[in-house]
């Protein structure tokens, strides 16, 4: 319990720091919100009036307080370019991206864990070399390359999956999955490399432990020894890395959603940045940061569930 409270406390503190940084950085950026709204040719008096009504002339600390207050009460402001309430907009796009995040991580783990285990079990043999070559190939080529390959192979030649677009999950969930699959696969291949290496190295360490020999001495089958006794011990660090990769994923998702014209969070961020939609940028950054933090918290709690030794701390 103490551990969970500790972690929650630090998450809240970090989120608070993130709001300050986000707010600070977006306000230092050149560009005037009022001018963005009214256009560069507008009347200076009208501009000034808009600034007044938006509160842009207030001291920064007051503006920050207002922003935080709004964030806390669910009033996230209105997007300048989409003319829509930001909270609503973000929720919709975040859901679309969540499909990609979950799917790509599932693909990455589903490939990486068996590959890493396989490499560790056959350490320094051809299986190990194959596994590390595959992993290296995944990481050394950028994800957009894989994206292009996916489009060529699965959309253009085979025609199994659509090459672009997005379907609202409320209307056609299977359609959403079909549209999300190729970008997810492309991202998953990039994520897989690290996870494979991590699985291999933790498994190698665990397989040399005495309790593995003890498990074999009990007459347990190799399958039980490797997939239960060893993997239960080795999976923790792999999941931790996967959690950290969620943060990295938000970076690459921008490119990938753009490539596949998939209108999710990445696509939204791209639009917001391109058009200097400050309120939207601030909210997006905050949401991404919060999601990354909470994912990592969830991962750490999962780790606690897996490894009883951490419960004491």
């Amino acid at each position, binding site marked *: 319990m*103490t551990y969970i409270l500790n972690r929650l406390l630090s998450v809240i503190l970090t989120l608070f720091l993130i709001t300050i940084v986000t707010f600070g950085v977006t306000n230092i950026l050149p560009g005037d919100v009022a001018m963005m709204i009214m256009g560069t040719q507008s009347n200076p008096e009208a501009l000034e009036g808009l600034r007044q009504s938006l509160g842009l002339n207030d001291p920064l600390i007051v503006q920050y307080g207002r922003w935080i207050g709004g964030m806390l009460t669910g009033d996230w402001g209105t997007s300048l370019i989409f003319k829509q309430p930001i909270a609503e907009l973000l929720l919709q796009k975040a859901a679309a991206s969540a499909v990609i995040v979950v799917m790509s991580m599932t693909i990455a783990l589903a490939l990486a864990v068996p590959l890493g285990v396989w490499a560790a079990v056959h350490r320094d043999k051809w299986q190990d070399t194959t596994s590390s070559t595959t992993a290296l190939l995944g990481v050394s080529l950028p994800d957009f390359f894989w994206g292009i390959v996916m489009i060529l192979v699965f959309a253009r030649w085979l025609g199994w999956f659509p090459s672009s677009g997005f379907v609202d999950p409320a209307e056609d969930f299977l359609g959403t999955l079909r549209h999300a699959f190729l970008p997810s696969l492309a991202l998953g291949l990039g994520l897989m490399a690290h996870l494979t290496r991590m699985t291999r190295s933790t498994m190698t360490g665990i397989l040399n432990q005495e*309790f593995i020999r*003890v498990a074999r001495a*009990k007459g*347990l089958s*190799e399958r039980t020894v490797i997939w239960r*006794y060893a993997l239960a*011990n080795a999976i923790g660090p792999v999941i931790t890395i996967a959690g950290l990769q969620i943060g990295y994923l938000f970076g690459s998702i921008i490119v990938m959603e753009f490539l596949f014209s998939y209108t999710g969070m990445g696509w939204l961020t791209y639009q917001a940045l391109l058009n200097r939609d400050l309120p939207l940028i601030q909210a997006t950054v905050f949401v991404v940061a919060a999601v990354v933090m909470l994912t990592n918290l969830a991962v750490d709690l999962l780790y606690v569930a897996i490894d*009883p*030794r951490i419960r004491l701390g």
Partner: protein
Amino acid sequence: MNAPAKPIVSVDHLRVEFPTRGGTVIGVEDVSFTIAPGETLCVVGESGSGKSVTSLSLMRLVEFGGGQITEGALTFARADGSTLNVATASPEVMQGVRGNEIGMIFQEPMTALNPVFTIERQLTDGLILHKGLSQQAASARALELLKLVRIPEPERRLKQYPHELSGGMRQRVVIAMAMTCEPKLLIADEPTTALDVTIQAEILALINRLKREKGMAVLFITHDMAVVAQMADRVVVMYQGRIVETGTVTDIFENPQQDYTRALLAAVPKLGEMKGKTAPERMRLIGDEAARAAAVAPKARKPEVLLDVRHLTTRFPVKGGILRRTVAQVHAVEDVSFTLNVGETLALVGESGCGKSSTGRSILRLIEPTSGEVWIGGRDIRALSHHDLRRARADMQMVFQDPFASLNPYRRLKDQVSEPIQNFGLATGQALKDRVEQLFDRVRLPRAFMTRFPHELSGGQRQRVAIARALAVNPKLIVADEAVSALDVSVQAQVLNLMMELQEDLGLSYLFISHDMAVVERVAHHVGVMYLGRIVEIGPRASVFENPQHPYTRSLLSAVPIADPRKRRFADDLTFKPITSPIFPLGHTPAPSTYTEVAPGHRVLHP
């Protein structure tokens, strides 16, 4: 062992090879022996002798370590009356034998249990697998097993995880695990090496009782001749992958035929053999008669105090809560006082966690003591500034247990030995080079080793380098923290003799921290017995060993196995009191240590 029964295992001309990139390495060669039901066969040997390879071959576990059985037969009499050649059996058949008909106990209780599964799960999975029991029936049996190995509060242990149990309890769980299916053969591979001596005594007694009650055969692998003397019916002595000698335990100990066996036995200190002697004596090493002669006449010295430790106390904070505040303290060293004379050895003995290492480190201020005084050569080390402390450390050096960890793997040995000389600016250029050469001569290492790296040396050679490095700055005091504990017995004897020789020649004082009572009896002038951070008994070695007064000293001495099969001690289970926790709440002020003098210089802590 009259009228030998049909053996349960017979090993014939076993040969195990390990294919490596550098060619094939032979693990064992031409190894043959048999084990009868109800018999304990001890396989004894030093590191690299192939004793573990032999035991792993019997389980066919050797192939998981990259080994291959290339020759020989391992015939095992199965429960159903048939025989099985383990060397050629299919992996599936072996899975049915392992843990079912052959049980195995390993060395490291701390790592032998899977840390993420409960004790119950680890005890029951073998039963479910081999005996087809339901989870419920298996759990009931697991509870019985924990009672069989006499674990306190067995019901609670089932639901616990390994890290919640002490080392002794974990080893009991490992033994219970090996016993789950009532195997006909129990293989114990160094089962007590990692344990404290009182816990070792309990585990040895437990194995003996189980063997007697269940009529098992036991294959007991160990490097410790004293344990062999206590446990074995018959003994196999191994050296470099081959059997040197086989015989009954009394034959091996009293009438060894081979030089290697004789040398091995000679190198083993026997507790009690120093009775009636006051000064330390070098180890008998075959082929080292010169050292023996030199040891006959120890120089008489006028007692002169070098190190005077007064009321030394060291506590470590225990952090807890959301703000990581100090919530309690570990009383690692509690009001410890003693003196050490020039040219003498004071041994601090005790079990793990008793504070002996913390005491040694506190004296050098490698960890900061909480209070007390440490006088050496007229200066209080505790009162020195950091600059002066650095200077003062030239007088006091340390030798650690693991020479592989205490030497830098990336630096040549001569650079590591010369480093302290350069740090203190004691010599440069040719003088430095000469000094390093002298030091290598001094610890009897060839000068050719000077340009080598640590991994090119054996354990004993590495420890000699560590000693040379400690000697480099002409210290007056050397704190040797378990300095010979990781070494093979014959190497240990050589290093001990070297240390004693250096003491006589250079007038060094040793603070000799050790858990090994037999070694301490051999080397120490004075002995301090530590328990829960305090010295419970201290005095001249002869007085403490021959007339122990404190109950803890007595139980410690009674737990030490003696390398003499005619002095067997562990008839049945013994129960030593578990050591209580040295963690106390903040603000707890323990009573000062007060002593009664029971003989000249021999003091015992008031209860």
